[in-house]
């Protein structure tokens, strides 16, 4: 199947500290890939390098046959094709729920206000937040904020959705509502790349699981393979620590 994003020899260093080392990794259309690993393993950095919130130090990111790290490439247009969901939600504080999902469509994609609102409402319904269109970010719970953030990213109708530990900042009782929405999205055939600590969820929804440790991809395979028959010692040790 067609590769949506193809990463070749990607590296990232902060000064002399190498956070990502020679990463080769790709996501195919319609695939749901979960990246697991302990804190500091570089999984969030990898995700943030993909949409260039962090500038990679070396390597290539091939999107539709073009290396987007070429200076000539329009990174703003590229980013609209990647929906990003953050750990800390990052809803725009000066916008209500609806206009959080509308502002990008109108200002960046140049859609009309009417069209943008129709699209926004459609996705707010998908995440179950369509009744809160008038609410401001500070008036919502964490789980509600994250669902709106998902709707905001979906409203741009991206090729891939990137989730950076979307449930890590949530109270335990709110984790479920966000994971449920994500599970439903996975079933619609959306291409998703998820950095997560929710092992149960990763096992259930992924087509592929990637285990990272110390800036490298240690193991990459089906959920059954990674969770039931891990081949590397580091994967085994990690799973032993995280799954009780």
């Amino acid at each position, binding site marked *: 199947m067609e590769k949506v994003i193809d990463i070749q020899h990607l590296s990232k260093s902060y000064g002399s500290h190498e956070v990502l080392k020679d990463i080769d990794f790709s996501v195919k259309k319609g695939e749901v890939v979960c990246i697991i690993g302990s804190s500091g393993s570089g999984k969030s950095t990898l995700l943030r390098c993909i949409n260039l919130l962090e500038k990679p130090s070396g390597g290539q990111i091939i999107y539709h046959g073009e290396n987007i790290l070429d200076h000539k490439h329009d990174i*703003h247009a590229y*980013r609209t094709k990647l929906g*990003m969901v*953050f750990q800390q939600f990052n809803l*725009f504080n000066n916008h209500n729920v609806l206009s959080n999902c509308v*502002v990008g469509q109108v200002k960046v994609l140049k859609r009309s206000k009417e069209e943008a609102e129709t699209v926004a409402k459609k996705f707010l319904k998908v995440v179950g937040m369509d*009744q809160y*269109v008038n609410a*401001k970010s500070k008036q919502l719970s964490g789980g509600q904020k994250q669902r709106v953030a998902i709707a905001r990213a979906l409203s741009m109708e991206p090729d891939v959705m990137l989730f950076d530990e979307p449930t890590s900042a949530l109270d335990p009782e709110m984790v479920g509502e966000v994971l449920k929405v994500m599970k439903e999205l996975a079933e619609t055939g959306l291409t998703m790349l998820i950095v997560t600590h929710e092992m149960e969820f990763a096992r259930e929804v992924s087509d592929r699981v990637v285990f990272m440790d110390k800036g490298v991809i240690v193991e990459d395979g089906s959920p059954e393979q990674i969770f039931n028959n891990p081949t590397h010692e580091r994967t085994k040790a990690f799973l032993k620590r995280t799954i009780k």
Partner: protein
Amino acid sequence: MSLEYILTMIANNWPMFLRGAGMTLFVSIIGTIVGAIIGLLAGVIRTIPVPENKSKRIFLKLVNLILSIYIEFFRGTPMIVQAMVIFYGSALAFGIDMNVTVAALVIVSINTGAYMAEIVRGGVISIDRGQFEAAQAIGMNHMQTMLNVVLPQVIRNILPATGNQFIINIKDTSVLNVIGVTELYFQTKTVAGISFKYFEPFFVACVLYFVMTFSVTLILRYFERKLDGPENYSMTGTKAL
């Protein structure tokens, strides 16, 4: 001194006081607004992320240097001295005979701009990184991020500091009497000069200054509450159980 004297003096000179107060308000309102615009522009330019392109990087550095010199110079010298230098300097250097009111507006605007630039920069820095990242992640460039996400929040946050600046301007325009701007202090001095009584006219000026600054405080508080919007929100459609 008597209350009777003050009342007669007001009755005889109220147009002078009123015109003075009017001029003070006019100069400080325009000065604060123009200064705030200068400050917003300077603040936005000074927070542009370092570009990759080398020539753009050098150009941005140069612009930043000019802005720094402007800010440091106007914050670092008294407005009363700036007034003299600009007013008499423009005549000497460029042969421009500046209208005093125009001179007053220019001086207060660029002075306020220097302070506001730092206030805005502080306001931009105080906005959570996540707001910038979320805007960038949906494809906004620096300008779109600033206009649609960051500045509306910055403006709300710097409103108290801007109000402060406005009040300072109302009081500090009094120094412009040195170049003959007919603001409240100048007019009061004229009234006092006619009668050789100083306490009473300046007491009246004192009250007028306070009424102006306190009104500004109240108006800005009202605006802050307006900007914050309602505490509650209404649900649309029917709530699913």
